[in-house]
């Protein structure tokens, strides 16, 4: 009798329940942990502009002499592989951003020649990371932060 009831449950309720649970979890993660609404099984595609390809990962590096420059991590595979970049912009949790910032600190990335007038030192004093999302008010597009600023020092 119990076996028959369990089988009946498996045939009729299991998958709808699984879909509902995953989708509810996605909604919670989007609103609490910065997951993109387009991903994670919540059926939020084409509901928000906030998809991973449109997010930006702002990275600022400062050397020991106080010179500051921005770093494009999408173009720095030594610090972040393309797959890892996609993952971090889709689901940017603070521990993961901290790990990426620590990797950036260890790598001591150099700025482009146009960004600073004098050559920066090899000593990096700080790396800051923040993920921003695209918004549109009916006239203009702009970026707003979706995570808090994560800062790592040696």
């Amino acid at each position: 009798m119990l076996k028959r009831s369990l089988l009946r449950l498996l045939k009729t309720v299991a998958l709808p329940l699984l879909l509902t649970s995953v989708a509810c979890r996605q909604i919670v993660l989007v609103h609490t942990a910065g997951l993109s609404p387009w991903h994670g099984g919540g059926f939020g595609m084409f509901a928000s502009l906030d998809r991973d390809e449109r997010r930006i990962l702002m990275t600022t590096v400062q050397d020991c002499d106080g010179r500051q420059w921005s770093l494009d991590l999408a173009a720095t595979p030594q610090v972040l592989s393309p797959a890892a970049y996609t993952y971090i912009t889709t689901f940017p949790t603070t521990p993961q951003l901290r790990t990426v910032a620590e990797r950036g600190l260890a790598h001591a990335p150099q700025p482009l020649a146009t960004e600073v007038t004098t050559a920066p030192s090899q000593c990096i004093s700080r790396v800051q990371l923040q993920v921003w999302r695209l918004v549109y008010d009916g006239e203009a597009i702009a970026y707003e932060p979706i995570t808090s600023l994560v800062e790592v020092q040696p």
Partner: protein
Amino acid sequence: MTMIFQRWHRWCERLLQPPRYLLVLRLTTWLLLLHSIDEWFWTMLPEKLLAAAMILYPRLVRQRWPWLGLSLCLIVHNLWHWATLVNHEYLYTYWVLVCTIAACSRTPRQVLSWNARWLIGLCFLFATGWKFLAGEYLDGSFLHATFLLDSRLAMGAVLLGGLDLSTLAENRQLFETMQAAGSIDPQNLLSSPRMAGMSLVLSYWTILIEGLVAASFLLTVPRWLYQKRDWILVCFVITTYAVIPVLGFGALLMVMGLIQTKSMRMAYVYLGLLIWMPLWMPLPQGLFWAAQRMLEQM
């Protein structure tokens, strides 16, 4: 012409001969083989190989072990890439799990049919819910910005919004520069009042049609809505995917629609739409771009 139609009808009739669940299981293996080949992950290789084996040896489709294997492959792939996968990739995993339960069951058709109806209904329920949750739909801003920035919607922006391709290219250039430079200051996009108005109308149309699909598949009352569910789903698929072709999602919806419908006529419609999908889905976009090229050359 009549002969072609008769042959097509006879071929469909043969395909739809009972048991229909076997056709649905076979179509599912084809979808598994072909879906997401443009976004390749190496974790998809086992599922593709297994699906190919099930197509080459059709007897495997009736057995439970290949389906259990496919389920395992899809679950691992899903867990591995959970954060980056989009909706229909999740739906594929759920559907393969349903097929596995059906292959192990004495009533496969009922298992497939019941779950297909619920999975379609729930996925549209969450899709409709998200349109309210995200807060970018009720004022039309999501579709407005998408028309202005997404090249896949250029046809809609030109035909419905009255914009020209150079304006859309300027908008995309502006956004790409903004993104590359990491500029966070607001930048005005070029648009028109007609585009803004159409975006609002289409936003409400999307909420309406998706909400209707959800209600008609999940509820059995009102009876007229429940009985019209197949037509509502077909209406959604044609009106949406002719503008934004998403082959993988559209094809799976047709397979799921095919097993849950009680009407033979609708079974023909689902099967026809599925088989001709690689042609009709990209056709409007193809015609639009061909016409644009001709206009440029004139």
